[in-house]
């Protein structure tokens, strides 16, 4: 005679979850003659599963209940399996187990309770499907805008290069041109102490003018490069400011440097908040 301790199951599992089984588990018809050894093993697995369930080790409990169900085909095991799937968040499997329990159990005393569980699991399934659909309809995430760091570095480098060209070239060539100018002045206004002829003086003046032209070109080219660098720097700083504002929800200070083209001329506009 089987002596399944269903009250023990009820004790091992949360009382509100377990079926109110006080009689022996109802065996299936074709398993009435199962041997005692196999039944003993089923009861052992059932006991382990009950203990694991009580300890909230639902995956372990599920394994034990499935083993018990394999050894002894009781509808009550299917109910416990359904409980485990419910706890493990597998509504589809839980529904299958509960429906097997209802189909195989004769005179189901807690049919309303089980049907209610099946209904809740179906709702869970629908909720998950709707959520998946919403997730599928969401636009792909926009890649965060670059923070402008590269532009800032490149802009600073180009600005420095341009400034170096403009200042270095302008300074060097300007000094050289200024010296030629001084030499010509020494001839024309200083009494020509070195006794330079007109041809020599004209050559000096020509060299001075050539140097001045080179100075203007160098300053213009260097200035242009520097302006391009400043523009890159301004764009980079602006992007960085935006990125910082986005990351900190605008809580921190921001600064923006941008080229400004107005009637009075060309300049840079520095704006920000603190």
């Amino acid at each position, binding site marked *: 005679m089987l002596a399944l301790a269903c009250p023990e199951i009820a004790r091992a599992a949360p009382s509100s979850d377990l079926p109110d089984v006080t009689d022996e588990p109802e065996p299936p018809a074709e398993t009435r003659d199962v041997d005692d050894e196999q039944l003993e093993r089923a009861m052992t697995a059932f006991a382990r599963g009950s203990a694991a369930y009580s300890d909230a080790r639902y995956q372990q409990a599920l394994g034990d209940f499935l083993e018990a169900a394999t050894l002894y085909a009781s509808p009550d095991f299917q109910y416990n399996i359904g409980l485990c799937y419910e706890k493990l968040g597998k509504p589809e499997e839980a529904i299958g187990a509960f429906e097997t329990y209802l189909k195989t159990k004769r005179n189901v005393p807690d049919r309303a309770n089980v049907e209610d569980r099946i209904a809740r699991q179906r709702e869970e399934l629908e909720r998950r499907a709707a959520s998946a659909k919403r997730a599928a309809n969401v636009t792909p995430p926009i890649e965060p805008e670059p923070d402008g760091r590269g532009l800032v570095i490149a802009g600073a480098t180009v600005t420095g290069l341009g400034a170096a060209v403009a200042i270095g070239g302008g300074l060097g060539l300007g000094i050289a041109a200024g010296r030629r100018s001084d030499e010509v002045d020494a001839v*024309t206004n200083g009494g020509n102490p070195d006794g330079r002829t007109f041809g020599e003086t004209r050559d000096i003046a020509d060299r001075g003018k050539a140097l001045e032209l080179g100075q203007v070109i160098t300053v213009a080219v260097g200035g242009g490069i520097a302006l391009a660098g400043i523009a890159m720097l301004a764009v980079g700083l602006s992007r960085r400011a935006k990125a910082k504002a986005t990351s900190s929800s605008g809580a921190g200070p921001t600064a923006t440097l941008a080229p400004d083209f107005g009637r009075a001329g060309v300049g840079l506009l520095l704006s920000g908040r603190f």
Partner: protein
Amino acid sequence: MRRLASPLLLILGGCFTADLDPTAIGVFACSDESEDACPGDLSCVNGRCEAPDTLPDVVIGFPEVDQELPFEDEVGATRMVNVTVSGTLVLVNEVFGTPHVFGEGHLEVVADDRPPVIVDAGALGGILSVPVVFDNTLGPHRISVRAIRNDGIPYDHGEALANRLFFISDGTTPMLGITRPWPGDAFPLDATTIEVEASVLRFALRPAVENGLPEALTGHLHVYYDRDIDACLADVGGCDNEYLTTIVQEGATGLPTLPDASAGSFPLSLVLRNIDHSLFRFDADPDDDIPGVSIIDEIQIVRR
């Protein structure tokens, strides 16, 4: 644009601001050896480019060219000649250390090889009469009037120097005077050909005729260089025939080639010769026993 750029350029190190005016007067250095030393119409004077219309000049009015001043036996060894000079040089007192002002200066008047006379007062715009002492001797005499700057440096352009050859003459003696080169003219040390010109009075120049018969007061000139001419003419040194060239007609130019020389002063001598190359001697009174005199002019030129 340039106005905007200039401050930046000045900050950066300066720029070319000088203006070169090719017409600037007295500014640019120059050299007579360079053909394009001065721009435009400027002339090279004392190593500076000057405007041609501002160059100081001097002109001798009296004595005139080849003028014969009558010999005055009674005045003694020397005589005074009132040389008249005009020009554009502004005469100023010669003060040591006075800075040079172009166009100003004083005159240096040299009679033959006498010490110079300084003239630093008066106005050359009119005619300035300068009493000059000469040796009271028959023959050619030379006067040089040179414009000198305040700082003592002679103006070196051609118009700043006036030369004049004249004669103190008895009216009968033939006379010879070298007009070119002028005493003190300098020539290079390497062999060089120079131009020799002379003024001749009362002597007709004709080409030489070998073994021709002498004609009265007719002949040509022999040009000697660096020779003791008196010894040569006496044929003591055997150099009477070592003349460099001849001048055979009035106004002609002799072109002797001077040999290589070391630096120094050398005599250049011209001698009147008969048509057959023999030495011409002028005998004012053939009836007396006094031998005739040879007609010679000699100057010193410089090799350097």
